């Protein structure tokens, strides 16, 4: 269920009053048949356009060496499906090492973003101290700075710190995103004060109030921050491209670009590589899409 279905007024008549279930719109009215057919046709057309390219890539990756992948009209399905290309990718580049590197970077990014932005968001929303407005302003300004514009200076900063060409260097600049801090701040602001006041009177200190009361109440936003952090790190291209020069430290995206540059002639190989890179993400998204759409929808409605 998405946020839209939840927000919607419960205008639909109770099902037991109906002789048989009919398709109704968001206001509980019946949808006409021709309109429904038209809608599904359009939906299927868009589906082909958005998901089709991924399926074509999957199909290419499964085609064996004896098949002509360039034939016209094109063969949409592999004649003799084989997993051979996946093995060949692993023989050509250390794709599993790259995947592990990506996983390390993305995992670290999730942990640091969740912890860092929850802490800072709580400090901005709930704690009172001198300079709080200034601290908020720092994050707002940081959000407005385009990463693309400061990337060379980030690179030189990283070199001064001696962290160039390390996975830590890949993680650090984005490890507490300003956007995530502000998201968490908004989530904490929306919690009623009364609950924390009660805990305060019971003698809970600030860490106890944060960990036991505030944090469990913003799990939804935290999940969104986690998903965004994972995808952002797993998908990032420009920054790792600039920081990493040693092929053994490559993340999957940089490794793929390298594979593409070196073996541009064998599309089966490149296709298998891209499927390895995208499959975990699609799986993750399929599992978490419920939280995702809800959280994103909430943010947009409130924003």
């Amino acid at each position, binding site marked *: 269920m998405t946020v*839209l279905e939840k927000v919607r007024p419960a205008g639909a008549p109770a099902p037991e009053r109906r002789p048989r279930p009919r398709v109704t719109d968001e206001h509980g009215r019946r949808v006409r048949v021709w309109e429904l057919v038209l809608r599904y046709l359009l*939906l299927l057309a868009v589906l082909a356009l958005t998901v089709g*390219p991924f399926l074509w890539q999957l199909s290419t990756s499964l085609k064996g060496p004896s098949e002509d992948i360039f034939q016209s009209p094109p063969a949409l399905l592999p004649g003799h499906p084989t997993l051979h290309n996946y093995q060949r990718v692993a023989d050509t580049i250390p794709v599993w090492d790259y995947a592990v590197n990506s996983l390390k970077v993305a995992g670290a990014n999730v942990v640091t973003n969740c912890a860092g932005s929850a802490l800072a968001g709580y400090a901005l929303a709930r704690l009172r101290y001198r300079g709080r407005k200034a*601290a908020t302003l720092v994050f707002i300004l940081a959000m407005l700075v385009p990463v693309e*514009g400061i990337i060379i200076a980030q690179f030189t900063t990283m070199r001064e710190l001696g962290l160039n060409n390390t996975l830590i260097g890949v993680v650090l*600049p984005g490890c507490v995103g300003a956007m995530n801090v502000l998201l968490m701040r908004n989530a904490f602001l929306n919690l009623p004060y009364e609950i924390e*006041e009660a805990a305060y009177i019971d003698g809970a200190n600030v860490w106890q109030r944060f960990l036991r009361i505030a944090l469990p109440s913003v799990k939804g936003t935290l999940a969104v921050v986690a998903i965004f952090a994972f995808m952002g790190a797993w998908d990032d291209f420009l920054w790792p491209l*600039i920081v990493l020069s040693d092929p053994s430290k490559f993340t999957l995206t940089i490794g793929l670009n390298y594979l593409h540059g070196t073996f541009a002639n064998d599309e089966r190989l490149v296709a298998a590589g891209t499927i390895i890179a995208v499959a975990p993400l699609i799986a993750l998204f399929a599992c978490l899409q419920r939280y995702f759409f809800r959280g994103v*929808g909430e943010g947009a409605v409130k924003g």
Partner: protein
Amino acid sequence: MASSSTVSGDVRRGARTPSAAPRVRRRLPAGPWLFAAPGLLITGVFILYPFVSTVVNSFTDRRTLIPGTFVGLANYRELLHDDMFWIGLRNSTLYVVGVVPALVLLPLLLALLVQKNIPGITFFRSAFYTPVVASIVVVGLIWVWLLDERGLVNSLLETVGVGRAGFLSDQWLLLLSAMAVTVWKGLGYYMIIYLAALANVPRELHEAASVDGAGAVRRFLTVTVPAVRSTMVLVGALSSVAAFKVFSEVYLMAGPDGGPAGEDTTLVMLVQRTGTGLTGRVGYASALSVVVFVVTVALMLLVLRADRKEDA
């Protein structure tokens, strides 16, 4: 100040229980700064400091391994006479012009299509979001393969008798293809933003318009569009800033050198090319970055101002 409105909202919230809120406030030692420290540290060291040093470096002849000295406006003067700079500026601007209208309109239509709760709609919504989830490298490589001289799109075009096109070899077709990929990847993202906005459109408006005899197109123009106008402005601002800073799509489809004779280079590609490597001209790349930053802010202000004018 952007924070002032939210802070006042905060005070209002506190005002409901005037006695308790200040009490919580007073009893805190150094705790608050400990909470904010990790975030402030990272943001300061890796966002704000690099930003300041980008501006400072843009007035020096700093190179990757050489500290550099102050050269005044020399880098900016050189920009004006650099053909690559003008090519980059042209392509980044064209990107905004080509991509933004499509990304303001198409996701809205898509949101209207998936808004109605018909069976299986959750599947369609998620499926339409797949391109957003996929890494830009994956997306780039998929489309390079689709648009290849011998790829699927060309063999379909040939099958229906149109003939093949050099999507990846012709300077303009290449730029257009990259734009199409950007739009394709962005559709789902902006669709979600519109879905949230559409959920807040009161249905009475649609019903009233229906009673008055307005058809679907008419209702879209007189009810839906005005109701989601502020969201359209938001999408316009977000997508124009992103489009101006385009890097990955063009880099992947045109190659690191930016297509035939570098004619498809964008500004950020130029920043990456001139500023990195052992011989990277950090000072000059910083001046390019400052241009990117100034145009980005100008684009934001322009879109927001257009919004305010229409309100008046």
